[in-house]
């Protein structure tokens, strides 16, 4: 039962998640990252590191985010692995604050 990256990830690229992942299961495009559900070992190490709380265990997804399970499974294998922290996208800090999060939570 893998973990899933949801909508809050889009447009941020804080990517603290990718360096803690022991199995390098994050893949990314220009806007965001996705978890390869086949590679994910359910360790949950990434969850507390996401400043915008975008990562859920698939069984805990709120109903309106359930489709992200399929999106991650489809997208991840088609994209390159991201294993190093990426440069922050423009406006990411403001976006985080607008979503009601801060670096400290």
């Amino acid at each position, binding site marked *: 039962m893998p973990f899933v990256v949801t909508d809050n990830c889009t447009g941020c690229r804080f990517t603290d998640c990718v360096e*803690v992942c022991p199995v390098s299961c994050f893949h990314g495009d220009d806007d965001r990252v996705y978890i390869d559900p*086949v590679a994910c*070992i*359910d*360790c949950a190490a990434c969850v507390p590191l996401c400043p915008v709380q975008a990562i859920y265990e698939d*069984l805990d997804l709120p109903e309106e985010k359930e489709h992200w399970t399929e999106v991650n499974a489809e997208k991840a294998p088609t994209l390159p692995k991201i294993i190093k922290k990426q440069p922050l996208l423009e406006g990411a800090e403001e976006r985080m604050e607008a979503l009601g999060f801060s670096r400290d939570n």
Partner: protein
Amino acid sequence: MTNVTTTVRGACPQDCPDTCAFIYTVEDGKLKDVKGDPDHPVTRGRLCTKLNDFAAHHNNPDRILYPMKRTGPKGSGEFKRISWDEALEEIKSRWTGIIDEFGPQAIMPVHYLGHQGVLNGLTAGDAFFNRLGSTIAEKTFCGVGREIGTHLSIGGSTGVDPESLVHSKYIILWAVNTLSSGSHHWPFIEEARRNGAKVVVIDPLKSRTAVQSDWHIPIRPGTDAALALGMMNIIISEGLTDAEYIAQHTEGFEELAERAAEYPVDKVSSITGIPEADILTLAREYAGNNPSVIRQGVAIERHRNGGQTARAISCLPALIGAWRHVGGGNLGLTLAPFALDWDAMCRPDWIKEGARVINLHNLGSALNELSDPPLKSVMIYNINPVVQSPNTEMIKKGLSREDLFVVSSELFLTDTAAYADIILPATMQAEQTDVMFSWGHFYWTYNHKAVEAPGEAIPNTELFRRLAELMGFDEPEWKRTDEEMIRDYLDWDSPFMEGITLEDLQKNGYAKVAAGDKDTRTPHAEGNFDTPSGKCEFKSNLAADGTFVPPPFRAGYNGQQLAGYIDPLPGYTPPFESPESAPELSEKFPLNIISPKSHGFLNSQYANEFKQLRREGEPIVIMNPADAKQRGIEDGDAVSVFNDRGSFTGAAKVTDDTMKGVIASFHGHWQKKTGGNGSHKGSVNAVSSERMANLGSAPTYSDILVEVTKISAV
């Protein structure tokens, strides 16, 4: 009132190679959270899917908090609360009566590594039961066959440091599902891979690890020694050996070469089911890409030829000079540098003349058939044999005996505890002090008591202090505190303990044994094998003494070893339950079952937790489409798996992840009445056998034939 939040250093208590360093968060005296310590060089702040909810496990409302006495029929799970005094009085009166009538050997501890602590783990009750004069329980559930096999070749080697794997160029993960049962090795493997290493997995099942590897080689269960001998034959005949290393640091090369020549590639292919071209490629790549390393998993031993399989594999590194290189060689159990005074822990000096030893693989038979004296009482702790031991139907039958007095010390009402007459409440890791060794890395880890025990639960150390007082034992050893016991049990003068003090260990939470620097260590570049000759012994000198089980796995006792003949050269013998060895049986039961560890449970632990249960789901029976079709079984069908020993049920998972003729079912599921899931009946060990492998009394969980049928809808 303001909340008081503190953090306390701890250590994962489980029988897992990784032994993570913990940080407990305690709020107003209650355990709020358990996280990994980010500074630990191997476990790096990450736990696993099994342990992530460890605080919830402590606070699980199903915990046994008080002593209990059985009120219903044996196995019914009906109990009433009693006081500690009542429980101890009952134990004293029953044990005293049994000792008077039958002698102390009518009592036996039944225990293993449900907790792995130096204080509360494998040997927690050994001194008590040796003092009592009970039957000695020999425990060889996991790894002893592999280690004896390895020991015959390379002695008590520290092996490759897993942190050195980053230097490896060719990594063979043999009979191990690293990503499910020891995932903290993986970042080192990944780093090696980024440096150009190739990762090969040899496993009958396409495990998570196999999926993530560069090359998965499926193999018929129990035939790995034939593959190792075939690899040797190719390496020797094609001149891929390190002749200088062989000349200087090995013994018996000529004899080994002769033996290996009996395994030409076509024969090996027909035994193992691996295509000839793959065997050739594997042997050539392994020999040609030093530093090559083989990580042998515990599953390597779980069949008739188990010990000799590990022995054959552990000869390979010397043949190609892999030990010359950092990150080259063999990685098995990393226990050798953990300097413990096992005699102080087990007190074999208290064992009386004529002691009786029973291997716990034979628990079912022993409970039902033993005489002179029969078993009249068992005390069960750190183990759940009704789910995890072989031949569970016999065990259940034995535990149901009205004349058998069963004491259980437990965290939860397990399928085994349900058969107890008296249950005693045990503490969980945050509620006790302990220190942990590791069999997968080189760090000691210290566990501070972080919170008070709930109810009347006590650690095993206190349990055996109370029992010692109860039985009138007055030696000063029973009066020691936990910390005094740690000081007595660790061998602080060992060279491996250089630079390590108890105070530092308590303060920092972990400390690496002095076994060399991970980036430079080559323990056997110059030989230095801990064997009679000091060399890697292709032809073993120790074989003449016969097989044995190391004393720590038999309460410190070294008498009455099984002994018997050992082939001094590594060899291949077909499984007990195979067409070659048992043609009639294999017609009746044509499928070979293996029962690997699940991803979500730690053996049967955590299989009563909501999150782990929901992740793991119902018990499944993995089978190849050809086998399923032949039996009219479709994916998701309820099926029964059976042989003459017993049966269990699960949902069929039809997939090419296993080869034709081999089925798999993960072990660990509980019955629903004791906190398990769904409506399945029995456990996978209902079909497994009490037979033992050829070295170290290893189990034969993968050497089992069964048949599968679809369960018709009622």
